[in-house]
């Protein structure tokens, strides 16, 4: 690869592709966070049973579901 082809390659990179990769990577990390949240809510409700546990578990699962949907839509829309 000559220096010219390398410069051509660098200057022809689509900035929006890089942006898409960064956004998808961030959303993937967010997915992990949402998964940890579900696990942690389960642990918290096991430690103390206060009567509203099922609501909190459903909200945590819905949050995880929304995070998955947002990740998938970022893959297809961007």
């Amino acid at each position, binding site marked *: 690869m000559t220096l010219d082809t390398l410069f051509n390659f660098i200057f022809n990179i689509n900035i929006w592709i890089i942006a898409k990769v960064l956004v998808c990577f961030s959303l993937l990390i967010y997915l992990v966070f949402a998964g940890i949240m579900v696990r942690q809510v389960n642990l918290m409700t096991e430690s*103390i049973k206060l009567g509203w546990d099922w609501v909190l578990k459903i909200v945590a699962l819905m949050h995880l579901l*929304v995070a998955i949907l947002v990740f998938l839509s*970022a893959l297809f829309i961007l």
Partner: protein
Amino acid sequence: MPDLYSSSSSSSSSSTNTTAADNPPVILFDTQEKEEQVVLLLRRHWVTNLPWIALAILMFFAPWALKFFPLFDFLPANYQTMAGVIWYLLVIAFIYEQFLSWYFNVYIVTDERVIDYDFYNLLYKDVTDADLPKVQDVSVKMGGVAQVLFNYGDVFIETAGAIPNIEFDKVSNPTRVAKVIHELRDQLNKEPL
């Protein structure tokens, strides 16, 4: 979902005025003994949630400000849409985590001991408990306009020996909480061994 529950069966609480619900829900915690009765379940006063609720409302309406300050107009339409979706996802996560932090940071007074459950964030939990006979001193600290207006404050429980001191942060009616702990401890100390 009040910030203070008291057991109606407690003799100590029946002698004092209460703003709490009189029928506490079934409370079970992982270290609870078979015969152990929950007398008080406390959380931070609901007023302490107002700062993050105000911030959440601001965050919710923040995208409207972009109509007047078009900072993201250089982005293609699909990126602008995704930015909005991701923003609201973060707002939901912020609200949910703040709520969980309030809901699960509880202070429990049973007829045998006091327990402090601290969930600092999603990954860190700290549980401290002390037997009531080991409680040496209970003090109350209230200060500031909000605390006087809404009757909430901190309760410090000094314990004997190597057991760390327990602090109930910003709980409703702290004077009553201190009184209940004092009465329960005195009751236990009077009981024959």
